[in-house]
């Protein structure tokens, strides 16, 4: 049996080594100075760019307060003083999350920030918005009070009318609670991380040129 030539052996080992290929691909697409930059272009010096960061900060509070609520349970969040505080913290951090997500959406819309290969970043943002609305709706159904019962009974007709009542049963508390505390938050968090990585990969979109030269 012939001995393998050193050069050929290395080349074939590299081509078959998926960890090496993935590492090189990440290094090429998202070097660390892009992932954690210490400077930004001059046009980023505007409060409009703060809306997205506030949205992420609100999401952190939503998840933190939600973890506490799920650990302690509905009797705690409806009866005890601290529980009602965390219940309110969860509700109001969601309000901040949605308000600043919409402000971020307005800002990015008027910047046309889907330009220069950033369409997928924009689309992921749209999906985050949709999944967040679904998460909020299942949250209203998970309150364990008369309000959630009223909403569930009214929403049942809407879901049946839309043809999804068999798969998405708003009267099934276990299904709504499971979606709200497990699947949908994981989905939102994963999509937000993906969204941020894509922003870091491409960088912040350049301002639209007054003459329209930068429009695509």
């Amino acid at each position, binding site marked *: 049996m012939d001995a393998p030539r050193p050069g050929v052996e290395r080349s074939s080992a590299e081509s078959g080594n998926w960890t090496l290929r993935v590492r090189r691909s990440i290094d090429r697409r998202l070097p660390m100075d892009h992932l954690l930059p210490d400077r930004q272009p001059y046009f980023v010096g505007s409060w409009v760019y703060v809306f997205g960061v506030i949205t992420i900060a609100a999401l952190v509070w939503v998840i933190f307060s939600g973890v506490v609520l799920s650990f302690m349970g509905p009797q705690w969040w409806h009866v005890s003083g601290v529980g009602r505080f965390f219940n309110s913290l969860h509700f109001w951090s969601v309000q901040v999350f949605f308000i600043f997500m919409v402000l971020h959406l307005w*800002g990015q819309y008027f910047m046309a920030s889907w330009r220069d290969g950033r369409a997928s970043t924009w689309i992921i943002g749209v999906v985050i918005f949709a999944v967040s609305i679904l998460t909020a709706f299942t949250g209203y159904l998970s309150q364990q009070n008369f309000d959630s019962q009223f909403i569930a009974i009214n929403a049942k007709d809407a879901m049946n009318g839309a043809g999804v009542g068999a798969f998405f049963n708003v009267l099934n508390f276990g299904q709504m609670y499971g979606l709200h505390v497990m699947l949908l938050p994981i989905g939102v968090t994963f999509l937000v991380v993906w969204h941020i990585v894509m922003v870091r990969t491409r960088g912040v979109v350049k301002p639209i040129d007054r003459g329209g030269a930068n429009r695509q």
Partner: protein
Amino acid sequence: MDSPTTYFHWGFILISLPNLLVIGGMVVLFAVALVAPFPHGGLDDDGRP
């Protein structure tokens, strides 16, 4: 707190006072963000303001 809120009805637009205040506040905040000076205005890699 238990009384129903005020609603505004202009043509096909029907909106509650709290929702109108939230949307109005968002529009104002967006406008302020456009014009308010940003502290420590960022410099680019060339130190350009």
